[in-house]
C-alpha cells in the first residue's frame, strides 16, 4: 500500500502477540481524512487489538504502523477509572488537551449530556458515561478518531443519533475515523471501507463487497449478509476519483 498526504494512519502487515498467542496478525489497512473505516468481526477476533496497534498503545508489534497525525481522539471499549480521584465531567473533558469552555459545551451539547457537565464522573450511568467519552474525543477536534464500540449501553434512539453524529463529524471536521462496531445495520450506512477480522484480515472492501464475500457469510451467516445488502439501495452518495463524496 502506498500512502499519500491524505493518509492519517497506516498499518502494514501489523500483528501483536501476547503470552505466546497471536491476538491478531497480518493486518494492513489505512485510514484517510474524511473516511470511515469500520472493523467488524466476532468476539476475540482482534478488533480492539488492531485499534490499539494503530494508536501505538501496543509497542512490541510485528510489522509497522505509519502515523501522520498527533491529533487523536480515542473512545476505548473498556475504561476503568479509579474513583479515588474526584473527577467531574468538566475535568474529564480537559484530560489530554486544554480546550476552551465553548468547545466543551458544544461537544457536550452534540452528544446530549450538557446537563451533566458538573456531575461527578462516578455518578453517571453507563450510557451517559459513553456519551461523555464520545464528547471528550470529539471536543478536541481530532484529525483521527478511533471509536471502539462507542455506543455500547446507549439507548436505541440515542444509538442512531450518535451514529449520525459520528458521520456528521467525519464530514464537518474532515477527520478520519476508525470505528469498531457490532451493529452491522447502523454502521454500514456510513462506512466507506469495511475490514472483517478473525485473527487476521478475513476480507475487506466496501460494505457491499464484504457482504458478498463468502468468508464473511460463513463468519456472520447468510442473514447478516442480507442486512448489508439492504443498503445497496440506500446509498445516498458516490465516491468520485478524488475521494470526495457526492450526494446523489
Amino acid at each position, binding site marked *: 500500500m502506498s500512502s499519500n498526504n491524505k493518509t492519517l494512519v497506516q498499518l502494514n502487515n501489523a500483528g501483536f502477540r501476547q503470552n505466546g498467542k497471536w491476538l491478531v496478525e497480518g493486518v494492513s489497512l489505512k485510514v484517510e481524512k474524511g473516511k470511515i473505516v469500520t472493523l467488524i468481526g466476532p468476539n476475540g477476533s482482534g478488533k480492539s487489538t488492531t485499534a*490499539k496497534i494503530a*494508536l*501505538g*498503545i501496543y509497542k512490541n508489534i510485528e510489522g509497522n504502523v505509519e502515523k501522520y497525525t*498527533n491529533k*487523536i*481522539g*480515542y473512545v*476505548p471499549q473498556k*475504561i*476503568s*477509572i*479509579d474513583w*479515588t*480521584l*474526584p*473527577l*467531574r465531567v*468538566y*475535568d*474529564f473533558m480537559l*484530560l*489530554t*488537551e*486544554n480546550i476552551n469552555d465553548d468547545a466543551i459545551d458544544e461537544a457536550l451539547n452534540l452528544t446530549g449530556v450538557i446537563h451533566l457537565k458538573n456531575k*461527578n464522573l462516578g455518578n453517571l450511568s453507563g450510557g451517559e458515561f459513553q456519551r461523555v467519552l464520545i464528547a471528550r474525543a470529539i471536543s478536541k477536534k481530532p484529525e483521527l478518531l*478511533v471509536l471502539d464500540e462507542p455506543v455500547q449501553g446507549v439507548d436505541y434512539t440515542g444509538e442512531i443519533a450518535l451514529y449520525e453524529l459520528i458521520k456528521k463529524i467525519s464530514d464537518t471536521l474532515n477527520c478520519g475515523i476508525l470505528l469498531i462496531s457490532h451493529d452491522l445495520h447502523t454502521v454500514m450506512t456510513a462506512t466507506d471501507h469495511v475490514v472483517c477480522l478473525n485473527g487476521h484480515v478475513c476480507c475487506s472492501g466496501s460494505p457491499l463487497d464484504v457482504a458478498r464475500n463468502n468468508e464473511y457469510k460463513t463468519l456472520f451467516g447468510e442473514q447478516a449478509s442480507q442486512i448489508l445488502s439492504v443498503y445497496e439501495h440506500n446509498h445516498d452518495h458516490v465516491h468520485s476519483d478524488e475521494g470526495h463524496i457526492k450526494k446523489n
Partner: protein
Amino acid sequence: MFDDFFIRALIAGIGIALVTGPLGCFVVWRRLSYFGDTLSHSALLGVTLAYSFELNIALSVFLISSAVALILIQLQKKTNLPGDALLGLLAHSSLAVGLVVIGFLTFIRFDIMGLLFGDILAVTTNDLIIIWLGGAIILLVLKLIWKPLFASTVNYELAEAEGLNPDRAKAVFTILMAAIIAISIKMVGLLLITGMLIIPAAMARNISDSPRKMVIFSVIGGLLSVIIGLFSSLEFNTASGPSIIAASLFLFILSLLRIKQSIQLKN
C-alpha cells in the same frame, strides 16, 4: 519572640508542605503510599552514607532513594513476585542494611530518634536553602509533567493513545518522590514522611469534588499541620515529625465530620 531554630523549622516546614500537598494527591490517586514508605525507609541508608563519606544528606538520600526506585522497576520486570512483596522486600532490607551500617559507624554519634522521627533543632540555614530551592524545582517539574501524569492516572491507554507519553511522566514522578523524601527527611523523619504526603491529601479528598480543589485543600492541610504541629512540638517538647503528623490526623478527623454532614444532607 521565638528562637531562631524555631523560625527556621517553621520556614522549612512551610516549604515542605507546599510540595507535599500536590505530590501527596498523586500518591493517593496512584496508590503509591507503600511505594513512598519503601523509598523513605531506604533513606536511612542514604543518611549513613552521607555521614560515612561526608556528603550532603539530602543529596545522598536522593541518590539512594532513586537507586532503590530503579532496582524496584528492574525487579518488577524480571521476577514474578507481586508488587507489594517487592516493595516490602526493599523497604525492610534497606532499613535493615542502614541500621547495620550504623552499627559499624561507631565513631559517629547518631541521633536515631531524630532520623526516624524528625528533629527541628537540626534544621540549619543551609537546609532551608535546599528545601526551598529543591521544593521549587520539584513543583516546577511537576507542573511540566502534570498533564500526562494526571491523564495517565485517570486512564493509561487514553493518555498513551492521545500522544502524552505517560511512561516518561511516571519515571519523572518517581524521581520527584525521591527528591521530596530527600529534602524533608530532617524535618519529618524517615518513618513519617509518607504520612506527610498521604494524610493531608486524604483529608482533602474528603472535602473536594474536583482535582484542583483537592490539591489546594491538600496544600492548606499540610501548611496547617506543620504550623500546629511545630507550635505544639515547642510547647510540649515532643518530636517534630510525630507532632506534625498528629496535627494532620486531627484535620483528617475534622474532614470526616464534614462527610458525615453531607451524607445526612443527602438523606
